[in-house]
C-alpha cells in the first residue's frame, strides 16, 4: 500500500475518532457511551497500526497492541463490571442538553483549528493535520466531564481525553519514547482501578453515583 493510501487511511481513522467522541456527547444512555468509547479506541489502534506500518517503527506496533489490549478489552470490561455491581440505572444525567453540548463541541472544534494553526505549520510529520483532531478530542473529552453528572460518564470523558492525547502524541512526533508511553499506559490503568474503587465507595455511602449529591464540601 503506497503512501497516498496510508495518509488517507490515517486521516480517516483520526476523523472517525473525532466522530465517535462527538457521538458520545450526543448519547443519552450509559451503555452506548461505553460502546462508543470502545469504537474510538479501536480507531486509535488502527491509526497507530497504519502509522507504524507507514513509518515502519517497531515501537508503534507494540503501542498499538497495548492500546488494543488495555483500551479496547480491559478498561471497558472493568467499566461494565462496575456498572453491573453498582446496578446504576442507565439514564445519564445531563446538566447541559444534547443540542447545547452539540453546539459546544462544534465551537470547541473550530476553536482548536484556530488555536493549533501555528503548530501545524512547523510540524513535518505525515500525520500533522490529525493534531487538530487530537486537540478537539481532548477538549470535547473535558467538556463531557464538565457537563455529565454521573461518575461513570466523567470517567469515560477522561478516557476519551486521553485517547485524544495519545493521538496528539503520535501526530506530533511519531509517539514519545517508549518508556514514556509505557508509563502513560500504566498510569491510566492504575488511575482507572483506583477510580473504580472509589466509585464503589461513593455508591456504598451515597447509594447512587450521581455526583451532584457530592455537594457537602463547600464554603457555607
Amino acid at each position: 500500500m503506497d503512501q497516498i493510501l496510508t495518509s488517507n487511511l490515517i486521516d480517516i481513522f483520526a476523523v472517525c475518532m473525532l466522530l465517535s467522541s462527538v457521538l458520545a456527547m450526543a448519547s443519552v444512555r450509559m451503555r452506548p457511551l461505553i460502546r462508543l468509547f470502545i469504537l474510538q479506541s479501536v480507531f486509535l489502534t488502527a491509526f497507530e497500526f497504519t502509522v507504524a506500518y507507514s513509518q515502519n517503527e517497531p515501537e508503534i506496533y507494540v503501542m498499538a497492541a497495548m492500546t488494543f489490549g488495555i483500551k479496547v478489552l480491559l478498561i471497558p470490561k472493568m467499566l461494565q463490571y462496575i456498572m453491573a455491581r453498582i446496578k446504576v440505572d442507565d439514564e445519564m444525567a445531563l446538566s447541559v442538553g444534547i443540542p447545547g453540548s452539540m453546539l459546544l463541541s462544534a465551537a470547541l472544534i473550530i476553536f482548536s483549528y484556530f488555536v493549533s494553526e501555528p503548530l501545524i505549520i512547523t510540524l513535518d510529520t505525515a500525520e500533522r493535520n490529525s493534531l487538530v483532531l487530537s486537540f478537539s478530542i481532548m477538549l470535547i473529552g473535558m467538556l463531557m466531564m464538565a457537563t455529565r453528572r454521573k461518575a461513570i460518564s466523567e470517567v469515560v470523558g477522561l478516557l476519551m481525553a486521553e485517547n485524544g492525547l495519545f493521538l496528539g502524541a503520535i501526530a506530533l512526533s511519531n509517539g514519545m519514547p517508549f518508556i514514556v508511553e509505557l508509563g502513560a499506559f500504566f498510569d491510566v490503568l492504575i488511575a482507572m482501578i483506583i477510580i473504580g474503587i472509589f466509585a464503589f465507595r461513593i455508591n456504598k455511602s451515597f447509594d447512587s453515583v450521581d455526583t451532584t449529591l457530592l455537594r457537602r464540601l463547600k464554603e457555607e
Partner: protein
Amino acid sequence: MIATIMVLVPLLAGVLCLLPLGTKGLFRISIAGALASLATVVYCCISPITGTVIDTSIWYIDSLSAFFLLISGFVSFVTLLYSKDYLRTEWEEGRLNAKEMRWFYLTMFVFVSTILLTFAVRSAALTWIGIGATTLVSAFLVGMYKDESATEAAWKYILLCSVGITLALFGIALLYAASSGVIPGDGSLDWPALVANAADLNPVFMKFAAIFFIIGLGTKAGLAPLHNWLPDAHSQAPSPVSGMMSGVLLNCAMYGIMRFYTVSEIVNPGFASNVLLFFGISSLLVAAAFILISKDFKRMLAYSSVENMGLIAIGLGIGTPLALFGAMFQVLAHSICKPLIFFCAGNITQIYKTRTMSLIRGVTEKMRFTGFATVAAGLAIAGAPPFPLFVGELLIISGAIGAGMYVLAGLLALILVFVFAGLVLNIFPMLSGTTDREVSEPVSLLRKGSLALLIVAALFFGLFMPEMVRDVFDGMVLILSGGTI
C-alpha cells in the same frame, strides 16, 4: 546507586509494615522506617547540596533537587513522628481500626518514596510519572476515613488531578516534539540536556508546552482557578497527611514547574513568567478572600497554602535573582511552617472533635503546650516577624520593587495585610477565653517533640541564614536562571 537506595528504603519500610505485628510493633517499625529514610536522604544529598551533581542512570540530583529532597525528608520524618501518637488516639477512639492503620503506614511510606523519586529523576517523563504516582497514592491517604465527605474529597482529588496530569502529559508530548529534532536519542526529555541546548528548541511548541505544563501541574500545585480540590482534600484528610501534603506534595508540582520554567525562560523569555504571575496573583486574591470567610480551621489553612503557592509563583514570575531567592526561601519557610500549624490543628481538632473555629475556645487554658505552639504557628503562617514567612514575603516584595514592578509590590503588600488580618482574626480568638468542655492535653512526648522541632527550625531560618546555606540558595538561583553549576 545511592539514589536507588534512597527511594527503595521507604518502600521497604512500607512493606515491613504489612508484617502481622501488633500495633506496638507497627509503631516501632514506622519510627525506624522514618529514621532510616531520613538518614538515606541526608546521606544521598550531602554531595549534591554542596555542588557535585549525582548524574547516574536515571537519577539526576543537583542542588535544586537536593534542596527539595532534604525538605521532603525532614518533613516526612517529623510527620511520621507526629502521626504515631495521633493514630494511637484515633485507634483508641475507634475512628480507625488496626487494619486501616497498617494500610495508612503502607500508603504513607509508598507516598514518601514516590515523592523522593519525583525529585531525583533525570527525565521530564519520569518526573511526570512520579507526580502521577504521588497523586494516586495520596488519594488513599485522603480517603482514609471512610465517611461521605472524605470519599467525596478523595473522588474530587483523583479526578481533578488526573485531568491535570493528562494535560501535563500532553505538555510533555509537545516538549518532546520540540526537542526530538534537536536532542538525539532517548535523552531528549532529560532536564539537564533540555537546559543545555534550550536555545534552539522550537519556540512555538515550547509556548504551547508551557501552557499545558503549567495548567496541568498548576492544578496539582493548587494555583487559583484550578485549586478547588485542595481545600476539600486537606480538610478531610487526617492532619498528619494534610501537613505532609501541603508541606511536600505541593512542592513536587512546583518543582516540575520550576524545571520547566528554567527551560522555557531560555527559549521564549518572559512568557512562562507572565503566565506564572497571572496564576500567582489570582491565587493570592482567591486565597485572601477565602481566608476571611472560611469557618473550618483546616480549610482556612489549605487556603493559606494556596496563598503561599501563589507567592512562590509570583516570585518565579518576577524572575530577577532576588525574587528567585525569595521564592526558594518561601518554599523552605512554607514547608516548615505549614506542617507545624496543621499538626497544631490536628491536636486541637482531635481533642475538641470539631473543625469549626467558632466552637473552639480556651485552647491555651486547657492545653498549655499546644496553645503555645499554636500561637507560634499562627504568627508563623500569618507572616509575623521572627518566623521565616515574614522574611520570605520581605524578599519577594523587595524583588518586585527591585524589578521595578511597584504596582505589583503595592498589590502584594495590600493582599498580604488582608491575609494577615484574616488569619489572626480566626486563630487567636480560639486560643483565649474559657471553655467548659473537659479537654486534656495529649501527653505523648513524641508529639510535643515534633512540634518543638518544627518551631526551632522555623525560628532558626526566620532569624539566621548561615553562609553555607546561603551558597546553596545562590546555586539554586543560578540553576533556575538557566546556568549550570
